């Protein structure tokens, strides 16, 4: 069963189409990385899943049921843009209010547990408005985790988190998906962080899903290449172009040869032609580059 | 101008007895892009708010461009984006920027607003109400607001928050441009060290309200240990050949590591002469992120 199944979802704000015919399939237990430019419709989609705004058309099914189903909705944890907390109440009271809202029986123990998870147990008595950005973000994550949600919707949760915060975040997300069968929908622009945990990806542009794939598929579709550097780059490039078909120079000052797996052959070839490489490496295109390429392709 | 853009000595600030800043020192030269790094709650935002005059220090000295931080002439030239762009949600982006342009007493208000909107690629959304903006768009508006009126000092707190890849690239380009060409100074705090590393010329690392290290990007590079790792089909003979020529050679994780050799071509040359074609050779450096984590864990142990 899929945790989220969206078909032909649409949302118009006045005459502006924020989401147009979006399809999305998130399997149970996945960490679904939701990627797209600013204003591409990520937050709008997430808000519709959480029932904060009403779709103009299309269907959203969560765990096989309609998204308005009360049972499913009580199992959603969310953090969209920033935690909605009462400014003048303490962190603890804010958490207790959400625990009451969810009808959690052992509220105090549960609140203490999630606060400990995000290392905020020492700041429980602080007023929310006195917390720093990173602390607020941690509180937001803790609030989303209350009541063992089956579906977590996180919009830019890494915002303002320090290195330690990001590590905790990764650990928590991996743990709840592996051990509690929770499903996570997470959007972020920090693709290198996302790459470390995501099992599935969805790439959105202009309100449409332009690509959905698993991490394994992404890995398979990313081309391998050999990157190298030498003292005389122009000569090196000429030499390589005469022998290999896909040679490119990157902005960082490396020459890349795509779809080739014998670097020693390259080293030897260049050496015999009077060029000594200073750096050479076999590598693979990462999520970030894949994404940028995909976006450029679409633009062209 | 020889003064520093920011000079802070012994700055202290407490909130109800809790010390947020405990004798902080900071020196930011004119024209620098100063990367301000620290954990959540270490006092970064507090420092920035103090510089902008949002908070009142308990004690300590703060000078901006050699003048008191209270000098109105200097303060008019400070652009800030702290935590979020403070904008009226019911007013349009254009109106919000217009108010700031009036506040700064700019002459060509409309032209200046169009200019900054164009920089952050928001010129088509000028009429949109601020509350309708997505997180990334709000951030861009905040940056545009900070750039209004050619500031001499930019204070940016987590400006990368919510920006997409394109937004981050624009951000990098602007910051490099204004510091190089207009002599602007930038103080920027971020947790995305990989991004910060691409542009920062100076670093300040803060922990529990104290500056524990200030260094230039060059110093930082030299402090990061460098070694060269080499891989070839026949690792055993590679190791033997290299061990014969260089002093400090180790075989770790399927790579031959050579320390203190900068000229990698020499290594390739040597190995080729011995009939070995390398499959991989690269210089390894500890990045800012690793350097920072190591520094933090070292301090924790101490």
């Amino acid at each position, binding site marked *: 069963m899929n945790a989220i199944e969206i078909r032909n979802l649409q949302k118009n704000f006045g005459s502006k189409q924020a989401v147009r015919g979006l399809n999305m399939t998130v399997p149970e237990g996945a960490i679904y990385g939701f990627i797209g430019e600013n204003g591409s419709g990520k937050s709008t989609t997430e808000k519709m899943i959480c029932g904060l705004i009403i779709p103009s058309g299309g269907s959203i099914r969560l765990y096989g049921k309609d998204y308005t189903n009360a049972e499913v909705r009580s199992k959603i944890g969310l953090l969209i843009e920033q935690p909605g907390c009462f400014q003048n109440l303490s962190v603890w009271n804010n958490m207790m209010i959400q625990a009451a809202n969810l009808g959690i029986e052992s509220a105090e123990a549960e609140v203490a547990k999630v606060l400990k998870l995000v290392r905020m147990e020492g700041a429980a008595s602080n007023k929310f408005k006195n917390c720093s950005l990173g602390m607020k973000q941690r509180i937001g994550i803790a609030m989303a985790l209350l009541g063992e949600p089956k579906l977590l919707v996180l919009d830019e949760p890494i915002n303002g988190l320090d290195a330690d915060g990001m590590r905790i975040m990764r650990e928590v997300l991996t743990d709840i998906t592996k051990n509690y069968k929770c499903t996570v929908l997470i959007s972020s622009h920090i693709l290198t962080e996302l790459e470390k945990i995501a099992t599935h990806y969805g790439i959105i542009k202009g309100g449409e899903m332009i690509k959905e794939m698993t991490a394994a598929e992404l890995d398979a579709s990313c081309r391998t290449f050999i990157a190298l550097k030498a003292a005389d780059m122009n000569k090196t490039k000429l030499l390589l172009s005469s022998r290999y078909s896909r040679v490119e120079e990157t902005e960082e000052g490396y020459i890349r040869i795509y779809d080739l797996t014998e670097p020693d052959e390259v080293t030897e070839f260049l050496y015999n032609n009077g060029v000594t490489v200073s750096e050479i490496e076999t590598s693979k295109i990462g999520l970030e580059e894949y994404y940028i390429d995909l976006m450029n392709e679409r633009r062209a | 101008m020889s003064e520093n853009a920011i000079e802070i000595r012994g700055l202290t600030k407490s909130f109800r007895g809790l010390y947020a800043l405990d004798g902080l020192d900071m020196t930011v030269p004119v024209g620098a892009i100063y990367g301000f790094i620290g954990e959540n709650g270490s006092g970064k935002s507090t420092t920035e*708010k103090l510089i902008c*005059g949002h908070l009142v220090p308990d004690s300590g000295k703060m000078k901006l461009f050699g003048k008191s931080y209270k000098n109105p*002439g200097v303060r008019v030239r*400070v652009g800030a984006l702290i935590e979020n762009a403070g904008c009226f949600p019911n007013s349009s982006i254009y109106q919000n920027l217009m*108010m*700031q342009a*009036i506040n700064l*007493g700019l002459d060509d208000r409309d032209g200046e607003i169009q200019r900054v909107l164009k920089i952050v690629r928001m010129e088509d959304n000028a009429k949109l109400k601020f509350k309708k903006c997505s997180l990334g768009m709000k951030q861009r508006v905040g940056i545009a607001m900070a750039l209004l009126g050619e500031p001499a000092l930019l204070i940016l707190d987590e400006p990368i928050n919510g920006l997409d890849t394109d937004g981050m690239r624009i951000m990098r380009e602007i910051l490099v441009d204004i510091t190089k060409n207009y*002599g602007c100074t930038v103080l920027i705090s971020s947790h995305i060290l990989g991004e910060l590393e691409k542009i920062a010329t100076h670093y300040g690392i803060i922990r529990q309200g104290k500056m524990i290290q200030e260094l230039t990007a060059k110093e930082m590079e030299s402090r990061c240990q460098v070694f060269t790792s080499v891989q070839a089909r026949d690792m055993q003979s590679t190791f033997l050949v290299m061990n014969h020529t260089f002093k400090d050679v180790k075989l770790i994780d399927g790579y031959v590591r050579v320390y203190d050799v900068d000229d990698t071509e020499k290594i390739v040359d040597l190995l080729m002469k011995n009939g070995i074609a390398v499959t991989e050779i690269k210089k390894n450096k500890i990045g800012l992120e690793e350097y920072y984590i190591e520094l933090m864990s070292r301090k924790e142990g101490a």
Partner: protein
Amino acid sequence: MTHTRELTFENPGFYKRLKGMLGVDFYRLFHTPMYYIFLAIAAIIPAMVLSMGGQPNAQGEVVKLYENTWNIIAADTPLYVIKNIGEYANMNMVFIFGGIMVSIFIGHDYKSGYVKQLFTTHSLKSDYMMSKSIVGAFSMMCMCLTYLAGGVFAGVLTGADMSVNAGSLLIAILGKMIMSLGWASLYTMLNVIFRRYFGVSITSSFVIGTGIPVIGAAAVLGNNSALNIFLYGSSVNACLSSNIGTLVTCIAVSCVWAVVYNIVGSVILSRCDVY
């Protein structure tokens, strides 16, 4: 380091700084609906009060609240001790709505975080205090005018008595408008003190705006003209039997309090964390 442009700092003078801050506040005032809504409220209220029937007396007869249209603007004589709502409800009500408006206006500054831009670029907090006081006073003066228009319009419609000493009426209206400055400064100061607590700031503005403290004092002291040293006292003093002396008192009281509140507010702002 090589820069194409040398950094120079000019020290902006008092007028330039105030002009910038006033520009922001007036721009916002005219570009948001709140100001116009409050102008409308100020016009509707006197019309509503004037056309209200009145209160029944002991004999069960309905006594009209106002015999004269101009009583909706000001009372006949300065009455600090009030016996019925008719003696209380006049143009002084503008200061109650004005207080609420100033609270909302300043509250939005803090709620949205726009004060960050303002305080980053203005290190002298008196700029902020003065600008808000002036904008608040301007709004209240405008509300006085729409109040007047609303009152006269309703008076003509209901056919109430229109006879009045024109000179005293003019002085009363002018006096009340001048009092706006003092009131606006007071509200600005209150909002600066309670900047973190919007509910408290709006309540305090309302309570003080109603003049309850002065009315309370009058209940003890009687109709003592010494009460004119307070903003509410002088606002009441500007009545239909006022003369030039009343106007002078109004100007003096309003200005003195405006200066006091501005100084207190500026000191508070420069000593405390602002955001």
